[in-house]
C-alpha cells in the first residue's frame, strides 16, 4: 500500500512536468508576442517580456492584411459550417431512419470518400474549380466544404442510438418526414449537432492545403495561409509572427474552452464507435 502511494506520487510528478512541457510552447508564443524585437536577440528563456508592448501586433497588421485574413477565415468557416450542419443533419436522418433502395450503397459511398485524401486529388480539384472560374473566389473555399462525411457519420450514429417512439408517434399523427425532422429530430439531436458544428468550424478554420492552392491574392488568403506567407517573408521577426499566431488561435481556443466536452465526444465517437 505504501509502495503504491509512492509510485502514484512519482507518476503524478511526471505527468505534471509533462503537462508543463506541453503547455510551454503556448506560453512562449504568448510571451514572445508581447516582446520587442531586440529582446529576442538578448533575452534568455524568460517567459516574461522585459518591455511589455503591442508592437508585434501593430507590425503584423502593418506587414500584411491580417485583418482581411481573419475576416476571410471567419466568413468561410461560418458559412461552410452552416452548410455542413444542414447537409449532415438531412443526410444523417435519411441514412439512419428512412427505408429506401440504395440507402446502404450511398452510405458506403460516403464512407468511401473518406478514403480519398484531398492532398492526392488536389490537381484535378484545382482544374475543376478553374473550369468553374472559382479559383481565388470564396466559392472555391466554401462550396466544396459544405459536405463533410465525418459530420454525416456523427449524426447518423447518434440517431441510430436514439429511440424511435417519438418519431413514430409523430408520423402516426400525420407529420410527414420533413415535419418529423424539424419538430421531433432537430430538438433531440442538439448534442450531436453541436459536436458537428464545433468540429467543422475548427476543421475549416485550421485548413491549410486547400486554401493555399485555391487562392492567389492577399485579399483572398485565409489566416492560415497568411501566417505561412508572413513566415517566409519575415523569417526572424518572432514578436510579429507570434502576435499573428496568437490572433489566429483565439477562435479555436475560445471554442475549445467553451465546449470542451463536445471535442472529446467527437474524437471518441469517430474513433471507437466508428
Amino acid at each position, binding site marked *: 500500500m505504501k509502495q503504491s502511494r509512492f509510485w502514484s506520487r512519482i507518476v503524478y510528478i511526471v*505527468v*505534471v512536468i*509533462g*503537462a508543463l512541457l*506541453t503547455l*510551454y*510552447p*503556448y506560453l512562449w*508564443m504568448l510571451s514572445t508576442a508581447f516582446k520587442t524585437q531586440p529582446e529576442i536577440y538578448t533575452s534568455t*528563456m524568460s517567459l516574461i517580456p522585459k518591455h511589455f508592448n503591442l508592437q508585434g501586433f501593430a507590425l503584423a497588421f502593418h506587414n500584411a492584411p491580417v485583418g482581411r485574413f481573419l475576416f476571410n477565415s471567419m466568413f468561410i468557416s461560418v458559412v461552410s459550417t452552416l452548410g455542413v450542419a444542414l*447537409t449532415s443533419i438531412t*443526410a444523417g436522418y*435519411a441514412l439512419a431512419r*428512412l*427505408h*429506401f433502395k440504395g*440507402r446502404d450503397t*450511398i*452510405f458506403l*459511398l460516403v*464512407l468511401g470518400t*473518406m*478514403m*480519398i*485524401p484531398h*492532398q*492526392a*486529388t488536389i490537381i*484535378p*480539384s*484545382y*482544374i475543376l474549380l478553374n473550369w468553374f472560374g472559382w479559383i481565388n473566389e470564396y466559392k472555391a473555399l466554401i462550396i466544396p466544404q*459544405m459536405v463533410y462525411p465525418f459530420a*454525416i457519420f456523427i449524426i447518423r450514429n447518434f440517431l441510430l442510438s436514439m429511440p424511435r417512439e417519438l418519431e413514430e408517434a409523430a408520423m402516426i399523427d400525420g407529420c410527414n418526414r420533413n415535419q418529423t425532422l424539424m419538430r421531433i429530430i432537430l430538438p433531440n439531436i442538439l448534442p450531436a449537432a453541436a459536436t458537428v458544428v464545433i468540429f467543422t468550424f475548427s476543421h475549416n*478554420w*485550421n485548413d*491549410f*492545403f486547400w486554401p*493555399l492552392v485555391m487562392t492567389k491574392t492577399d485579399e483572398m488568403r485565409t489566416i*492560415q495561409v497568411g501566417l*505561412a506567407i508572413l*513566415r*517566409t517573408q519575415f523569417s526572424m521577426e*518572432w514578436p510579429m*509572427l507570434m502576435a499573428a*499566431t496568437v490572433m*489566429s*488561435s483565439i477562435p*479555436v*481556443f475560445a471554442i*475549445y*474552452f467553451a465546449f*470542451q466536452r463536445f*471535442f*472529446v465526444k467527437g*474524437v471518441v465517437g469517430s*474513433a*471507437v*464507435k*466508428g
Partner: protein
Amino acid sequence: MSTPSTLGLKKRRKHHQERTDTIWGYFYLSPVLAWVALFMLFPMLYMIYLSFFEWNFISPVKKFVGLGNYTQLFTDQEFLESVVHTLQFTAASVLLTILFALGIALALNRSFRGVGILRTIFYSPVVVSMIAAALVWNSLFDPNFGTINKFLQLFGIQGPGWVSDPDWALWSIIIMTVWKTMGYYAVIYLAALQGIPESYYEAASLDGAGRWRTFTSVTWPMLMPATLLIGVMGVINSFQVFAQVYVMTQGGPVGRTNVIVYYLYERAFQFFQMGYASAIGFVLFLIIFIFTLLQFKFVDRKLDF
C-alpha cells in the same frame, strides 16, 4: 393474429411509406450525392486519366505518354527520396505518438485533483492549427535564439541547428508533430482503458500480479484494438504530412525533409507538371487506400451498418 384484410392494409401502408421515403431520402441526400460526384469521384477519375499524359496546365494539348509517368517515378531520385523521408517520418512519429499517448492515458485514467485540467492541457495542441503550431515550434527550434538550444546550453550542450541541420530537420518536424497529435490519440486510449472491466484487474491482483505484470497481461492486450486503430490512423495522417514541412523547412535543407505531398505540390503548382504530379497523387492514394481498408477492418467489429 392479423386478418387478411388488415394485413393487406398494412402492406399497402408499408408500400406507400417506402415510396415517400424514397422521395424524401433522395431529396435529403441530393447535396451529398452531387458533392460526392463533383468533388470526389470526378477528381479521382480525372487524376487517373491525367496521370497518363504530359501536360503543363496551360497548353491546349495533352501529350499521351501511357505509363511513362509511372515508370519515370521509379527512376526519379527526388521522388524516391521523398518516399523514404515520408516512411521515416511515419515510422518515428507514429511510434513516438503511441508511446506518449499511452503514457498520458495511463497516467490520467483515474480520478485525482486536477485531472480535468491535465486532460485539457494534453488535448489542447490538437485544437490549434498545424500552421500555428509549426510557427511556434520554429521559434523554439531557432538555433541561436530558440528556447531549446538555450536550455541545452544550461548543461553545456551546443544544440544542433534543428530545422536548418540536415540531420535534425526531419526530427524537428517529428517532435513537433508528436506534441501536436499525442493528445488526440490519448483520448482514444482513455476511452479504451475505461472499457476494460474492473474484474480483470481484480483477478490479476488475486493472482498476485504486480503493476508491470498487470500491464503486460491485462492492460496491453486489452488495448490492442485501440493500438491498431491508432497505428493505422497515424500512418494515414503521416503519409499526408505537408503543412509542417511547408512552414518549418520548405522541404530543405538539401531536400532532407522533402516528403511525398510536398513533392507533389512542387511538381504541380511550381513546375506545372500536371500529369506527372497526378501519377504521384495516384500512388499516394493507393498507399492511403490500403491503410484505410485496414482501418475499417479494425473498426468494423464495433460498427453496425
